[in-house]
């Protein structure tokens, strides 16, 4: 114990509006998670390797058996990449579920909750860091896609809108993962539960196979499934093959619907998650 003079420091918080604090606090928390990625680069590596493997598997192993119309294998590869982007966005959610459950189990959540910080910032910062990681993965996947023959045929504006849409949906859906993570007893359960709900949405979708190949009773779910909408919207904006089933609303307005889903998810799950965070154990 050395006698450092502690009087020189101003420990009073500067006055700032609550929204301002929400932003700075979120940035601080976000920085924590980004630092963590640099400390455990393996996590990023495996977050990348999995979707790349899916790309290679479907492009070269399963793809030949799937018919998306004229154009054969090349057409399927163009069909596949927006689907893989949607899948990646979904699978990334499991990571935040586990991360939040882990924090809660370790007591660092209590530390956050006992600080005079904005309660929403812990989750906002975590989801923001997850979005940044996601953006990087989406970027690398796109490059992988280009390498195997995927092409963006649309305008620059359309492509930019597509990436904005993927990013926005990715951000919104991590709030669902955060909300689930706050209700899990431990990280093992979070690991399984965090994936369990993602599977039906991810695979009962059009990301790998056209809706027309699925049984009639399943088609409405697949059509309205947000993951399908996202993939379809991506294909539409990139001008990749879009095998249509009919003229249902989700097929006619996939881009609008994807943005709508993102806003809806955010509007529902962000407040729910923040409330769950505030009332933990209460």
């Amino acid at each position, binding site marked *: 114990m050395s006698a*450092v003079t502690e009087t020189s*420091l101003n420990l009073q918080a*500067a006055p700032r509006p609550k929204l301002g604090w929400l932003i700075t606090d979120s940035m601080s928390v976000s920085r924590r998670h980004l630092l963590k990625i640099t400390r455990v680069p393996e996590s990023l590596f495996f977050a990348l390797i999995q979707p790349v493997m899916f790309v290679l598997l479907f492009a070269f192993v399963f793809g030949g058996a799937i018919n998306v119309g004229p154009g054969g294998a090349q057409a399927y590869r163009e069909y596949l990449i927006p689907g893989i982007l949607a899948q990646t966005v979904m699978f990334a959610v499991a990571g935040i579920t586990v991360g939040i459950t882990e924090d809660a189990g370790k*007591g660092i959540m209590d*530390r956050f909750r*006992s*600080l*005079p910080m904005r309660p929403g*910032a812990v989750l906002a910062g975590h989801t923001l860091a997850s979005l940044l990681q996601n953006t990087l993965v989406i970027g690398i996947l796109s490059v992988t896609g280009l390498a195997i023959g995927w092409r963006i045929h649309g305008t620059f504006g359309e492509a930019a809108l597509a990436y904005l849409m993927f990013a926005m949906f990715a951000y919104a859906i991590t709030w669902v993962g955060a909300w689930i993570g706050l209700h899990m007893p431990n990280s093992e359960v979070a690991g399984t539960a965090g994936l369990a709900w993602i599977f039906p949405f991810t695979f009962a979708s059009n990301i790998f196979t056209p809706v027309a190949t699925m049984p009639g009773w399943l088609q409405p779910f697949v059509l309205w499934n947000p993951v399908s909408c996202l993939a379809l919207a991506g294909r539409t904006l990139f001008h990749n093959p879009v095998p249509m089933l009919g003229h249902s609303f989700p097929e006619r307005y996939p881009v609008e619907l994807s943005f709508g889903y993102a806003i809806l998810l955010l509007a529902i799950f962000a407040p729910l998650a923040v409330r769950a965070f505030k009332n933990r154990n209460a």
Partner: protein
Amino acid sequence: MTLAIKAAGLTKSFGDVVALNGIDIEVEQGTVLGLLGPNGSGKTTIVRILATLLKADSGVASVGGFDVVTQPDEVRSVIGLTGQYAAVDEYLTGRENLELFARLFHLSKVDAKKRADQLLDRFDLSDAADRGIKGYSGGMRRRLDLAASLIGRPNVLFLDEPTTGLDPRSRQGMWEVIEDLVADGTTVLLTTQYLEEADQLANKIVVLNHGEVIAKGTSDELKSQVGGDRIELVVGAASDLPSAAELLREFGSGPPATEPEIRTLLLPVSGGSSAIVDVVRKLDENKINIADIALRRPTLDDVFLSLTGHAAEDKTEAAGAPKGRRGRKARR
């Protein structure tokens, strides 16, 4: 006198398990209150309520003059909390952790850096500052955790079992740190399972059992209730016990008790270790063989034994976790 912590009629149930059954607590500014009790007695629940982490079912509580329910932000700006688990990020370095929490305490970037430096220095963590927490020892983690809770130089500090799981040397170090903080005027609410720890640090002690206060007072007051020290003597032959009891009666602060099956004699004493010398000399003069002799200080078990008539329960139960299986209700 100014009260730093005031709680009245706190109750809390988890499902049909009553965790707190009407708790009243007052802690004067600049003093240390020790919450003493076995696992599951409600210590952690009280801390969590006072630190705004948990809402009580009924009752009122204020910390630093602010209501914990209606003014949580104000409460959070005057408290520090160190829980049973080191609440730091494993993957960050010690310095990064402290800077993170300082920023979240709304210090400016420059001040956060300075404050982290001060605390690292103060807790002898400067050398390890830029290493990841993963490589820290248990004692270092606790010190860092305590440092993190001191970032805003809190008026009121909650320490939930601050030394559980620490080796004796780290424990001693932690005690010294806490004593320094109190000397600087910090109010401390400390939970512990160790009577020795409460004895060392606390001005006043509240003993909890099954979510109720079963005793409160200074350490001396509690000890006098328990009956102070006692000598535990094992004689070489059980047949010597009656005569030993007769011979030693004069040294006891109460009558000796014998347990012939284990050749043991228990003698309450007030003179501490000098009583042992008297006992050994007397037995030696009378050629009674001593197999073992020890001076026993009262333990938490003894406190419970004398206050409730049975030993402290649930030693093995997960430490004060508010959730999970707990098979009994608070006694009324």
